[in-house]
């Protein structure tokens, strides 16, 4: 690990000024950043610790039914907030399906949004990686890429964004509140992360020094509370990143889908909102055939980026599953194995 300066500013303005200097990085809980530093993947000259900033650790439940979450709120605190998880159960389920209890107790909202890809070549400084060193090439392209992207990837980079939390956030139309030297601005979460294109090193819309201060869930997002689920396919029962995942929310009126929300995880460099699928579901009956059609629409543009063709069909199936579970209804309490295919399904069995 390189030698670096460590700052713990007491105000947001001070933090932004410090972080605008080249070579700076914000430090939240460090569960991702410090690992990257220890592995020599990133070598910031200056860490700007967010720990001393006031007001970033609040969960505000807004009177209109929405919520505002400070960037330093811990993943576990948010997931276990009773009223928050009542309004946004799929978000709580996604949070609790991520990482391990220890990590969730540390990891923050802002850090989760801005966590880096898990592409093994990105983590290996000896490999060529356009994200780490623009123009160097992409060793994942011809390498071990079984879990890489099937949507929105480019020749330059085929990495995925690994967050679970961001998937229901994208589905529910969350908004990111950003503060920078130029002032405050808001960006829909759906537009917050960038696809790689020609510049995979640019992962979000944040300009140097810009700080995520909060995340807002709009009031209408709570209208899906009765039919909202997150499902995550993993290679072990817990403590693993998603192979593919999906968040689904439905508003069902008189046996018909009035409005649907669907986003996929583990398939692209950003949480993937499936608007075509949502459109296909509006006005449809909540049955297996509609869900399969929606899933097909969600993956219509998908192409393998390597040895990962299977992920396309898996993504369809996980999308259909999330929708089916959402249709059955949000369970009374979150299952002990959140987002797991092994969590019991309330009511009728799902499979033939």
């Amino acid at each position, binding site marked *: *690990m*390189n*030698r670096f300066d460590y700052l713990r500013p007491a105000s947001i303005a001070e933090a932004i000024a410090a972080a605008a200097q080249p070579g700076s990085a914000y430090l939240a809980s460090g569960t991702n950043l410090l690992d990257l530093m220890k*592995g*020599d993947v990133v070598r910031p000259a200056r860490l700007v610790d967010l720990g001393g900033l006031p007001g970033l650790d609040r969960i505000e439940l807004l009177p209109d039914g929405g919520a505002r979450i400070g960037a330093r709120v811990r993943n576990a605190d948010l997931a276990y907030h009773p009223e928050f998880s009542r309004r946004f159960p799929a978000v709580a389920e996604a949070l609790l399906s991520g990482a391990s209890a220890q990590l969730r107790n540390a990891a923050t909202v802002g850090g989760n949004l801005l966590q880096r890809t*898990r592409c*093994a*070549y990105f983590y*290996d*400084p*000896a*490999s060529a990686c356009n994200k780490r060193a623009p123009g160097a090439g992409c*060793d994942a392209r*011809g*390498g*071990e890429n079984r879990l890489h992207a099937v949507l929105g990837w480019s020749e330059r980079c085929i990495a995925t964004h690994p967050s679970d939390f961001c998937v229901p956030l994208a589905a529910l139309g969350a908004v990111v509140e950003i503060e920078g030297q130029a002032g405050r601005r808001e960006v829909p979460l759906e537009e917050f992360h960038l696809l790689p294109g020609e510049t995979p090193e640019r992962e979000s819309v944040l300009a140097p020094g810009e700080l995520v201060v909060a995340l807002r869930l709009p009031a209408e997002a709570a209208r899906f509370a009765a039919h909202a689920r997150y499902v995550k*396919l*993993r*290679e*072990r*029962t*817990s*403590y*693993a990143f998603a*192979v593919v995942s999906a968040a689904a929310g439905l508003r069902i009126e008189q046996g018909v889908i009035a409005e649907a929300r669907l986003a996929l995880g583990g398939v692209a460099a950003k949480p993937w909102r499936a608007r075509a699928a949502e459109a296909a579901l509006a006005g449809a009956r909540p049955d297996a055939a509609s869900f399969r059609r929606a899933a097909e629409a969600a993956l219509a543009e998908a192409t393998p980026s390597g040895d990962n063709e*299977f992920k396309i*069909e*898996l993504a369809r*199936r*996980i999308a259909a*599953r999330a929708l089916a579970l959402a249709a059955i209804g949000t369970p009374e309490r979150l299952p002990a*194995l959140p987002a*797991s*295919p*092994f969590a*019991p*399904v309330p009511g009728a*069995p*799902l*499979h*033939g």
Partner: protein
Amino acid sequence: MAETASATHVRHGSSIGQPLTRRDGVLKVTGQARYAADNHPPGMLHAALAVSSIARGRVAALDVAAARAHPGVVEVMTPANRPPLAQDPDDKNGPFVFRMEALQDDRVRYAGQPIAVVIAETLEAATEGAALLAPRYEAEAVETGLDASDVFIPQMVGPGAPAEARHGDVEAGLAAAERRVEATYETPAQYHNAMEPHAIVAAWEGDRLTVDTPSQGLAWAQERIAGLLGLPPENIHIRSPFLGGGFGSKGVISGPQVLGILAARLVGRPVKLVLRREQMYGPVGHRGPTRQTLRLGAGEDGGLTALHHHVRTATSRFDDFLEPAASVSHTLYAAPAIATTYDAVRLDTGTPLFMRAPGEASGSIALESAIDEMALECGMDPLEFRLRNYAEVEPMSGKPFSSKALRECYAQGVARFGWAGRPLQPRQMRDENGLLVGWGLGTATFPALMFQGQARAVIRRDGTALAETGAHDMGQGAWTALAQLAADSLGLEIDQVEFRSGDSRLPDAGIAGGSSHTATAGIALHHAGADAIAKLTELAMADQRSPLFGAGNMGVVARNGRLLRRDDESRGESYADILTRAGLAEIEGRGTGAMDPAVPEHYATHSHGAVFAEVKIDPELGQIRATRLVGAFAAGRIVNPRLVRSQYYGGMIWGVSFALHEQAVMDKCSGRVMNANLGEYHVPVNADVPSLEAILVEEHDPHVNPLGIKGVGEIGITGTAGAVANAVWHATGVRVRRFPIAIEKLLV
């Protein structure tokens, strides 16, 4: 044991057989157990390895100046200034001696090989110094897979068994068979990943060296280090009271450990060197990958007519360790004709090494899968088929088993698991949520081995005793089980016996490997205690003042710190009285533990077991979970049932890992392991093994050694891995022959 902090145990009769909790448990859960890296001698410096990122070629340049200039860096050790060794680290000068990289030259032979050591005042400075070396390489093309070009036929596999073995005429047996199965299975490279990384703290005083380092073989380690340094072994003092797991990777001294010693020599101060997790994927061994082809023939009645087990495996380009995966086929099923054969390739990796159940683990998952495939071919229940081919004598050698309660294992496992009523055909069972359910079975087996070990026992005038042997507690519970054996050998309560272990100055206890440590070190302690008691008895019987005077042929028994006349237990006296009257402070006994060479000549010695697995699988998504495991094992005398059960659990979890989780993912171009961390190198978490049961099946072995102790440390993996694989087939109807089983293979 100087390190004991334990609760008092109530003993009912003998200590052996009591389910004592770990005597070092309190130390461990309170953080007081001192592992190698917890030692900080005064003046100690920190060393960090710089390792190669290429897998083959040479180091062309290192920026030593940049590293040296970094604040806190004291010295950079490269081949140019590394203190001399008395032996070439590439000399193979004895059995179990592996070539190692100790900065002898600029060659790189695998990714992750040490190429320099940076020594600094702090770990951070040393680590950054290593990064600043920014090596440049001349790289050569690498070979990484089992399809590499230069195939050879090895003469020996594993630690020295003949590679090829034949019994009967396999081709004739196959030709005569009514049914045949031929199938090829693949297992990946796996890494030991002990929780505690290899660590060493080395301190020199003149030409005497003290090292704190985890070791599963103190005497070997001492000899190897002494040989390399050109010093008498007694100058090397190794302390290894606790290991945070070893699984074979701490069985031999590795290059990085030697480099820690050389770094301390170079700077003239104590040095600590701890491998980073990713540095454990190169210089400290791994389980070699295999591709195994099984050819089975069976008659109409389901009796095997032939079994051919061919193994392709891989070793490094510069040394040999070949995973002896076919050896399970020598012992398990009664085929009249058996052949086991090997070929191998050389890869640009570190040399493979024994890893928990070396050979048996990889071989068992293939053999148990193939046996199930043949059972299906014959239309038989997998258990019925196994019983039909039950080996009454060891099939390969024709020798009787010294003991074999496998039938009992099957019976108890079947009853506990509820195997009855299992449909023969796959994809027949669902749970209440509609998940696919499958049941599978695997037979577990592991040889009962012994190495050579010594022990010393001393009875003291105060009536207490000391027992010592340089044994190794990798976490399995040697501190406890061996003390139980020692206490019984001395006729004392366990708390009256001071037990010393884990130090190279103590008698050589033999290597803690091959599931043999309790037997080897335990029998040595047993004999040492008996020897001390015998001497004490002689003393008493020869003394007219003793109530035991002239007991002679009648003999005496030792119990509760007293010697009693066997023919009249009211006549006896305490150890303390005997020694006091004789004016002796103590009396010493010595003992050896080793297998009587006559035993393997006449008997096949193995532990056995039967493992039953239930898996559930999402029919659309393919995600797999081993929801229920029941293992029933027979391994002779059980010294401590609590510890033994925990060994079986650990083994069974490892079996789940083998079937479903574990593999090193190697980049084909660079030869680097791409998942060299515990986040991505998956092993089961608790949620993956929600229900585990281990049944201890009673077994009396009158032959294997005087106490009838067989091994329990490795057998749990065998059987389990195959049981899980077979359950996956039973749930889905898809036979996956490449492990770990990937979800995409199950998508139908």
